[in-house]
């Protein structure tokens, strides 16, 4: 049922791509102003769940409530207009367009040019690459650089809910830190973040809430720390609580983290 106090609620979500259900009844709430991280094995339905939020996959059963409004059946554009923006897992920039053009496209729902210019200014500060490579074709950027531009583009709408599918994938350690810091900053200024991440240890550390998805269902729900420290989950999905598979050459001698 609808409840306007709940920011985002998954209610009995069943969804798939025609060859059987990938999600088999997913229920949980995402609280406003937090960072919620979904972890789980490959193929457990994490990306599919995110796609149901942004309208790219329509659930067969169930409802998604966003501030009391049902999202199921709305078009991706209508969902964007409500303030829900997703950065997908695979590259989504227009390769033949410039970096600047790609970022500006992120504000396609905004009509006021001064507002666009202001936001762009702010985003250039957050992501210097947007200024430095403004006139280069997006396709000439490396995989990690493209990911940064995708983030920049998503922020042009100043979304209320940012949905990120594996933001750390393909990023070098320095860029990864920038991206994680940016997620923290986005959250600090009031944006709610829902993310899927295989770099689960770092992601759970900065998350208020953690959800473990397994075989299309919620296996465990708790604070980020709860999930991080759950012995069984650690062994199954977080690489175990022991030293890395490689024994003696533990990087930096600092233990697993």
């Amino acid at each position, binding site marked *: 049922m609808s409840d306007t106090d709940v920011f985002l609620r998954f209610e009995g979500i069943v969804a798939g791509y025609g060859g059987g259900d990938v999600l088999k009844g997913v229920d949980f709430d995402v609280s406003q102003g937090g960072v919620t991280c979904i972890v789980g094995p490959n193929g457990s339905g994490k990306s599919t769940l995110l796609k149901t939020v942004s309208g790219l996959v329509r659930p067969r059963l169930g409802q998604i409530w966003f501030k009391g409004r049902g999202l199921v059946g709305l078009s991706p554009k209508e969902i964007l207009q409500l303030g829900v923006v997703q950065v997908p897992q695979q590259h989504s920039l227009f390769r033949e367009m410039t970096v600047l053009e790609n970022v500006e496209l992120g504000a396609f729902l905004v009509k006021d040019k001064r507002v666009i210019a202001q936001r762009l200014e702010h985003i250039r500060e957050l992501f210097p690459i947007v200024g430095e490579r403004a006139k280069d074709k997006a396709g000439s950027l490396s995989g990690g650089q493209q990911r940064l531009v995708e983030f920049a583009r998503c922020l042009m709408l100043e979304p209320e809910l940012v949905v990120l599918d594996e933001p750390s994938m393909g990023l070098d350690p320095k860029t990864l830190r920038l991206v994680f810091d940016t997620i923290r900053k986005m959250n600090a200024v009031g944006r709610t973040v829902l993310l899927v991440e295989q770099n689960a240890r770092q992601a759970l550390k900065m998350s208020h809430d953690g959800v473990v998805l397994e075989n299309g269902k919620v296996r465990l729900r708790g604070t980020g720390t709860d999930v991080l420290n759950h012995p069984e989950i650690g062994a199954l999905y977080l690489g175990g609580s022991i030293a890395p598979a490689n024994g003696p050459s533990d990087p930096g001698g600092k233990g697993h*983290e």
Partner: protein
Amino acid sequence: MSALLHVENVSKSFGGVQALRDCSLDVEKGSITGLIGPNGSGKTTLFNVITGYVKPDSGTVTFADKTITNARPNHVFALGVGRTFQLTRIFARISVLENMLVATQRDDSWLRGLTRSMSSKVEVANAMEWLSFVGISQLADLPAGALSFGQRKLLELAYVLVADPDVILLDEPAGGVNLTLINSIAEKIKALNENGKTFLIVEHNMEFVMGLCARVTVMHQGTALVSGSPDEVRSNALVLDAYLGGDDESEYA
């Protein structure tokens, strides 16, 4: 002893962007060599040059003492250089197992591959074995397009392994794969290496690279900046500055 794979002074520009600049690299036979570096430093372009997907402006690539500069991708593959891609490339409409069977035909002519109506039982068994190896044998009959991104990466890894190349280039094998599985893949690469396979691995997961590779080359702005043991590389000031970004990198590595 000469290197199994030898890259010498390779340069490549795309329009105004110089992706590779006098880049040289040696991969010794039987080694696991790591290739790390910031986003945009030229790692994937170097893979593309080695495997024939991109023609270098200058420089040479030799494999087992044969010059393969400018050779076509299928030729390089047939000689025994296999690779995976950062973003996966598989046939989405045929089954996972059928994808594997396509890959087993490396030694066959294109025509023979087409006219063959059936794969032998041995080939199917072998393909299934590699699928179990990466943990996705239960998905063998699904169309490959139904796999999640992480599962596609695993299929691609199996796809390269089943072709049995002498040297295997892996482009971010751990990207998008859950941590427990990453550890198990690392173990498997080690086991293959002990049986004589040579690996060149691009990866940002430092734990994975430093634990697995005896030798690591760091790329920066299109050229090989430093090569050495994981410890040498990790303590190199240039590397810290260009790539790891400070001494507290282990938090994010």
